């Protein structure tokens, strides 16, 4: 279903450790995105592989669902995760 984009948020958070920390919750709440759902999905997507800070671009939609793309960490060229879109996570703020 085509959806209108509200905006994008760029974060760098430790792989597998989004937890449900204040930074993520604070930023995503402003966008109407369910921070806990994002954290679960991000941690699952980054649980294996590269350590360290992971750049992630989160797109927030008008219906308060979201999707995100995980980028390759800049400081891990030798063993970087592929630059791949994470599975689109579409979830209304329930």
């Amino acid at each position, binding site marked *: 279903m085509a959806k209108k984009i509200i905006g994008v948020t760029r974060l760098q958070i430790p792989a597998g450790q989004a937890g449900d920390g204040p930074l993520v919750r604070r930023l995503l709440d402003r966008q109407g995105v369910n921070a806990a*759902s994002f954290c679960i999905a991000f941690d699952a997507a980054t649980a294996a592989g590269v350590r360290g800070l992971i750049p992630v671009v989160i797109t927030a939609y008008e219906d308060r669902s979201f999707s995100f793309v995980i980028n390759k960490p800049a400081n891990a060229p030798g063993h970087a995760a592929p630059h791949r879109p994470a599975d689109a996570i579409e979830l209304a703020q329930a």
Partner: protein
Amino acid sequence: MDTSRESAPSPAPVPWVVEASVAERVVLANGKAVGRDEFHGWLWEQAQGLLGVNEGTMTAVDAAARGLVASPLVIDAAAAPADRDWVAQIPVAAVEWWFADEAAARAAAALVANLCGCEVHRIRADESADHDATSRAAFGPIAVPEFGVVRPAWEDGVAEVAPDGRATIFIDPGLGFGTGLHETTQLCLAALSAWHRGGSRLGRILDFGSGSGILGIAAAVLGATRVDAVEIDHQVHPAISANASRNGVAERVVVTTDLPAESAPYDFVVANIVATVLVEHAAELCRRVRADRGCLVLSGLLADEVPRVADRYAAELGRTPLIRERGDWRCLVFVIA
């Protein structure tokens, strides 16, 4: 009597934030010029206690104003494409580095002082209401007016209903939306409690958009015989089941991704989602409520969204809702009798 629950919760540490501007390239102390991502990676390795980097948000309107997209009406058909990294295209980005404590923040600020391409503007504690809310959700029992208390899952005790009707339930606040803290959840719990105290039947319950499962679980603790918890995000299904088990109601809570194809009518239907989804499912949800004696509760609404949703449901049900409010949030209660 277990007294450990009564002890004061430990306050969560307050994060500290370093606000800085970062150019597209930063020259490190050793003379090496690095890009912005690499700079953050370098800081991650050098600084202690870095929780994360907020590189900022760009709205579709801003992106259009900067010429990054043709129109602010950006429509996305599926997942976000990798090239929609609008924030990374800002020449000098305002960033926030979040640290575990003040010492870590100040040490990091000293580390980047005098680097060409990076300028620190401010070091501050994040004592926002959001953070307080997070801390309370993480550490403290939450008193919910009319309903009772929502306690963190790891505390001692069992879910129960006191003789005066006040309930105690246990929820893991880190799993799925619905910690009991948000106004929309509290409004639903209050409506559920009011229905129960009024002597109405809590037999079959539909919790549509279940999140952590808190609403369906609360209904089960109050005595519902069967709860269908519908949650589109299958990743939180184990969390709903875990929360149900913690409250001793696992055998009465059935977790699904979609509405059961056909089912007997529900005594109580609650949907704490968003206006768009509520309107989309109006006919379906109305059809599921018992026509002789049932209750339909809709939450997740801001005040200005009420007319659209109320009108749609009023047309289906032939009656107007009672509106509960808390802060900016509204909850519609349709009693069918």
